[in-house]
């Protein structure tokens, strides 16, 4: 099967990667997932995204499953997540259970208040500490609130994290970083998004580059 309308093909590596993107409805999770998947199939790598729409999306806790490579089923099993890509801290913490034994957590430092009366938000530093207790040095917290604001506003946090993921090496053999950059350059508000991508990329290239999970 030939994937992609044009362009060359990468040989299938036999590898698969399960990315669970989590955050709050409206943070641009689906945009992020679509960029990854389109970039993958452009080079002949299979990609599946499972999303939630409708009522559950309105400011609620959401997750998007992205599966790349040799996969069939749309949902990642609990305990099968290779990369937990978090756009919001509480939502990331809620899903640590889904990680595989050597799964990596890549999360923003953004914390959003649930729209319920009398909600007590956890303290950010101690929440990160609790997360470290569970996953150890497989936790990478990207200062995305700062980087996204530098790029133009909090809504660019998703692109910051895409840049960070691209720099992490986790996508190697499945998604080409240059293709991803080109896809970001075609986004709406391309200038801000490219800046956000680069800021995330540079941060992670300096601090969190690792091999395949």
């Amino acid at each position: 099967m030939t994937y992609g309308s044009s362009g060359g093909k990468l040989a299938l590596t036999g590898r698969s990667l399960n990315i669970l993107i989590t955050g709050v409805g409206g943070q641009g999770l689906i945009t992020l997932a679509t960029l990854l998947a389109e970039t993958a199939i452009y080079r002949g790598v299979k990609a599946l995204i499972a999303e939630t729409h409708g009522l559950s999306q309105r400011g609620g806790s959401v997750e998007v499953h992205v599966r790349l490579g040799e996969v069939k089923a749309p949902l990642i099993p609990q305990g099968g997540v290779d990369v937990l890509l978090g756009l919001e801290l509480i939502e990331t913490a809620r899903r640590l259970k889904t990680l595989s034994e050597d799964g990596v957590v890549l999360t923003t430092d953004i914390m959003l208040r649930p729209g319920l009366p009398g909600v007590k938000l956890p303290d950010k530093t101690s929440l990160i500490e609790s997360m470290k207790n569970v996953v150890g040095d497989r936790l990478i917290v990207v200062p995305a609130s700062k980087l996204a604001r530098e790029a133009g506003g909090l809504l660019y946090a998703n692109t910051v994290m895409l840049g960070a993921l691209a720099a992490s090496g986790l996508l190697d053999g499945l998604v080409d970083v240059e293709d991803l950059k080109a896809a970001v350059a075609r986004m709406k508000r391309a200038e801000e998004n490219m800046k956000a991508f680069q800021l995330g990329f540079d941060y992670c290239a300096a601090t969190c580059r690792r091999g395949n999970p």
Partner: protein
Amino acid sequence: MPSKWLLFPGRATALLLGNEAIARGALEAGIGFASAYPGTPSTEIVESLAWAAQKFGIHVEWSSNEKVALEAAWAASVSGVRALAAMKHVGLNVAADAFMSIGYTGVRAGLVIVSAGDPGMWSSQNEQDNRYYGLLGYIPVFEPSDPGEAKELTVKAFEFSEEHEHAVLMITTTRVSHVRGPVELKDLPKNFKTKGWFDKDPSRFTLVPQNARARREHLVSKWEAIRDALSNLQPFNRIEGDGRILIVADGVSYLYASEAAERLGIDARMLKLATPVPLPKKLVLKALEDVDKVLVVEELEPIVENQIKALVAEEGLDIEVHGKDYTGLTGEMTLERAARSILEFLGRGAVDIPWKPVDDGGLAGKLPPRPPAMCPGCPHRATYYALRRAVNAARVKPVYSGDIGCYSLGVLPPFREQDMLIEMGGSVGAGHGFAKVLDKQIVISIIGDSTFFHAGLPALANAVYNRSPQLVLVLDNRVTAMTGEQPNPGTGINAYGEPAPMLKVEDIARAMGVEKVVVFDPFKIKEATKALKEAIEYVRDKRAPAVAVARRACALEATRRARRAGIKQPLYQVIDDKCTACGVCYNAFTCPAIEVKENGKAWINPDLCTGCSVCAEVCPFNAIVKVVEEGEGWDDVWF
């Protein structure tokens, strides 16, 4: 915005949403007519077609409900135009009256009815298994596993329907409709047949009893021909692998069962089914040859399992058939569930499951929940806030008869103004029953504009005719917001975005004979409270129905319109010295844009504020003020 690939004229592989893939399949099949009422997870099928429609001259519409959508699509089909009607699973309940007769009449040009199910209830009030409808109405069920197959199977469904002069019910689930995956595009036709001719044949199409009896005989015999044809529906129905163990799986369950078996390293014969109803007996019998036992992996009800059990009994075969005893009846399929079912079926322990959840030491349990919430600037929040004040001011004991829409979120604290919710339009009908038997409680039926046009109209006629003392509160944001802001009869535009007649709820209410009709702006809390209090007192004192219309645009729609038109959005901020940390804005009004500082004082997040102004009125200390003025035309985008 649907994928640009929908309109790509030639061959390519594109990443498409399952629903977009169905739309593309319908286009490749040369569809001429499509209709739907939006409902998650089905909405993007007709949304995509509407976007593509004008280029090809196809008629595409948002119908006022699913029954109308199906009736209209059937009429197009029997007039020789290929047609599709789409709806969510519960939408088929609304369309069921038409659906149950369509088997009797048959069709002419291909008719595909898409019903998108929701195992796990991500966005629905139940997880009914619509494959039963196929058995009930003698309509074959096609069930794709992923977007790529959904596209191919849609094309096949049109051909099959036309060949057999019979409708096809295509059933998807959330994990097909809302999955994006690679889809192989084929050429789009040069011409789309959008106009037909109705050849009259009353003996077939006019189902008076004498004709219906003859059609029933015809239907029953046709059913067996359809069953036989489905045995040859390659490659959608196929046998893979070999062994004395058979796993049968349909729809998306095939992908779970197949991947689970592969990852567990289990060699079994597998029967992949894309047509669970009627069971393709010849193919199943072939799959059963030399098999000792069978596991059926399917979501929800044992539709395939029970048909195979019946077949095994009919044929006197000595084969064990299992299914729901291992997979369970509730919720959606997962890899873990498929793996566990297969292992237990083989007598092996669940310890072999390759995925183990991490022990997070109870961390997840300590985190605050985050249910979905009404958006910043949502007029429903303001209406609920004003309604609570009006009820208190009128000193009545309310019963809030609820309905389906974004406003269903009013069930959550702090509002708790949805005391029941069963189905579309149910608020007014049930509200009538409540009102007739409750003499110490005042019934307030809360319904959105789209839901009002969908199924509220007959209930309002009943309320007037049978004089029920209820307040019907219509939350009129002039759009079908929950499914992504589709237009409806109250919007003033059609599915293509062209101007269309705008039906007004207050005009309809008056025409139906409602004597007390009020229209208010929910963003003006004091006026809204006054209007609602008057309406409640009218219902209490006159024991007759009243209608109140809360009119303000959906905040998502309003801010989008402003952005497109380049209209500057105002911004509100809290004056720190004036804020007393009373919490009214974040605990009683609960706008998500209002955050709480360490000292309990409020802070408005400028990234989230939509400039709706309501918090400024809600604040008892006048501590919230406008700090950025709106641009010209700002007020207009909100109506």
